[in-house]
């Protein structure tokens, strides 16, 4: 199915329901449909629609208008430096470029139109165009964050996105009172996915333009928000801002988090401060058209309340794989590993794209190698150990940084950790831990090393522990390990 069908479904099912906008300036399903059709008529003739800017309450109109016009929608990270941002915009020749007010003047290769002006100028009378039916067309192009290499253009076709929606979201499943607060930027796969899934569910979308913990809490109270999605750094800031006080957000039924690994301590604190909210952990990649595994509210509750270590451990899992996605954990020689053994995560299914502008990386049987390492427990819970590219190989032994980071994070006074491998003449790589202490905490490197040695073993003990005021992250909370490696590589060994 094609995303343009979703526009007709919205008109049919939610004609009078408020889908977009704040409570002050509401847009119903019928109004949404009119603007999408009008927008599509103005896009016709362009080869793509680029959007470079912050979240905007009416941005879904531009996304669906692109789909209706049969051209890809390409959200670009406006926080990049000008020349990097323009290089990505320039990859889309013949595109209509839309931008927010602050970003439009920074676009050099195209004449960018301010999104508000474009929306304002949409004609009431226009020559209607018929939407395409071909669901093999490209719906969205996303640039991967490039934490380990240059950004790649990941292609998501209509069939991938519709497979995700039809497989995991109930059309009209949201009550008329439901509203979701979105804090992830539009250039992140979660930003695109929630536009689609909440439109499909009939849930009103409210945007936070840029994240601030206090404004986030205030918006939930003011708008009667029932659902919210954050990345782990945002969850950490909310917990920090609350400082032990209950969140007092009685309308919030569901809080989902994902996009990077969350600290278990932050998660436990958040669960305590938001006792009536259901927590959802979502795991997915850009190349998998968003979520492929979910740890739901019941799983969170069970993990917190259980005495069984197997169940308790699931709090740090990504939950169970969606029913329409297949998963395999494979070893060094591509053999399928049994439950409990760590290997490379492979995925297959209708929503799995695994395709870049440079070509598909699916194997001949349709499997996508995520380059994430992990394992599945006996009951099908998926545990992510991190990017395979981050694996440290010390003396021939494969060591996941996550394992060491978990031990260090559990030590009092440790706020954040990054464990990396640096070149070493004797061992191939040696283990270095960069640690951010909690405010006011005094840490001792030898004690921290001893803690790892006691919990794991000598070969996994960091050779060096260094202290930092902060660690580098992408805006969506992904730790920039290669930046940490570069910085540490300059230290004397």
């Amino acid at each position, binding site marked *: 199915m094609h995303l343009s069908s979703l526009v007709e479904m919205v008109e049919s*099912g939610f004609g009078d329901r408020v889908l977009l906008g704040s409570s002050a300036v509401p847009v119903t399903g019928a109004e949404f449909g009119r603007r999408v059709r009008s927008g599509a008529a103005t896009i016709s003739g362009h080869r793509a629609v680029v959007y470079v800017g912050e979240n905007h309450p009416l941005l879904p109109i531009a996304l669906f208008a692109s789909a209706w016009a049969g051209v890809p929608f390409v959200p670009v990270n406006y926080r990049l430096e000008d020349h990097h941002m323009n290089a990505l915009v320039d990859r889309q020749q013949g595109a209509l470029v839309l931008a927010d007010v602050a970003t439009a003047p920074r676009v050099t290769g195209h004449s960018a139109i301010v999104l508000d002006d474009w929306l304002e100028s949409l004609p009431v009378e226009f020559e209607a165009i018929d939407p395409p039916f071909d669901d093999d067309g490209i719906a969205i192009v996303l640039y991967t964050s490039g934490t380990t290499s240059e950004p790649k253009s990941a292609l998501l076709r209509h069939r991938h996105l519709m497979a995700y929606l039809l497989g*995991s979201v109930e*059309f009209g499943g949201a009550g008329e009172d439901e509203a979701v607060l979105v804090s992830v930027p539009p250039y992140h796969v979660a930003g695109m996915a929630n536009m689609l899934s909440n439109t499909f569910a009939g849930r009103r979308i409210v945007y936070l333009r840029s994240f601030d913990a206090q404004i986030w809490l205030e918006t939930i109270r003011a708008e009667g928000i029932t659902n919210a999605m954050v990345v782990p750094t945002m969850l950490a800031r909310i917990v920090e801002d609350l400082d032990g006080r209950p969140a007092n957000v009685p309308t919030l039924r569901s809080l989902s988090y994902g996009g990077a690994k969350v600290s278990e301590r932050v998660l436990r604190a958040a669960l305590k401060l938001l006792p009536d909210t259901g927590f959802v952990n979502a795991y997915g990649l850009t190349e998998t058209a968003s979520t492929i595994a979910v740890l739901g509210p019941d799983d969170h509750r069970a993990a917190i309340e259980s005495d069984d270590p197997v169940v308790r451990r699931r709090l740090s899992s990504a939950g169970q794989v969606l029913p329409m996605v297949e998963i395999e954990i494979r070893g060094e020689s591509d053999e399928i590993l049994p439950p409990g053994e760590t290997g490379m995560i492979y995925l297959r299914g209708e929503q799995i794209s695994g395709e870049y502008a440079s070509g598909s990386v699916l194997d001949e049987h349709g499997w996508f190698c995520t380059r994430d390492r992990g394992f599945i427990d006996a009951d099908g819970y998926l545990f992510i150990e991190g990017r395979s590219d981050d694996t440290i190989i010390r003396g021939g032994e494969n060591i996941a940084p996550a394992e060491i980071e978990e031990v260090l994070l559990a030590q009092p006074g440790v706020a954040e950790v990054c464990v990396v491998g640096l070149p070493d003449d004797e061992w191939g790589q040696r283990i270095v831990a960069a640690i951010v202490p909690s405010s006011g905490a005094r840490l001792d490197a030898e004690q921290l090393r001893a803690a790892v040695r006691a919990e794991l073993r000598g070969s996994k003990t960091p050779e060096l522990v260094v202290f930092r005021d902060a660690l580098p992250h992408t805006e969506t909370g992904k730790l920039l390990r290669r930046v940490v490696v570069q910085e540490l590589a300059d230290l004397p060994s």
Partner: protein
Amino acid sequence: MAMTLKPGTRLLSAVCSTEMIAVKAPAGEVDLTIGGVTPVASAADRIDGGEVAAGHGGGASMGKRYVDEAETIELLCTKPGEGVPALGGELLQLKEAKALPASD
């Protein structure tokens, strides 16, 4: 009356408020009805004073999926109404779907 469907084809009951969209469709012509009558493509084509045929009522619910036994066809209800869909005279069955928590 026979008609051809594609995924994305909209189907409005000619005799009640039920609206559907084809999610999955077999190749070739199908004999499809909603409320016992061949569906139409737009509200303007509805039959004035038309009624749901006996045995083809009972209500279609928003968001629910309807399939035939072999799952060659799947329709999704986008607007509820009295009439339910049938293929070759056989009523389509409600497809059970496991609810997943909202993740984004």
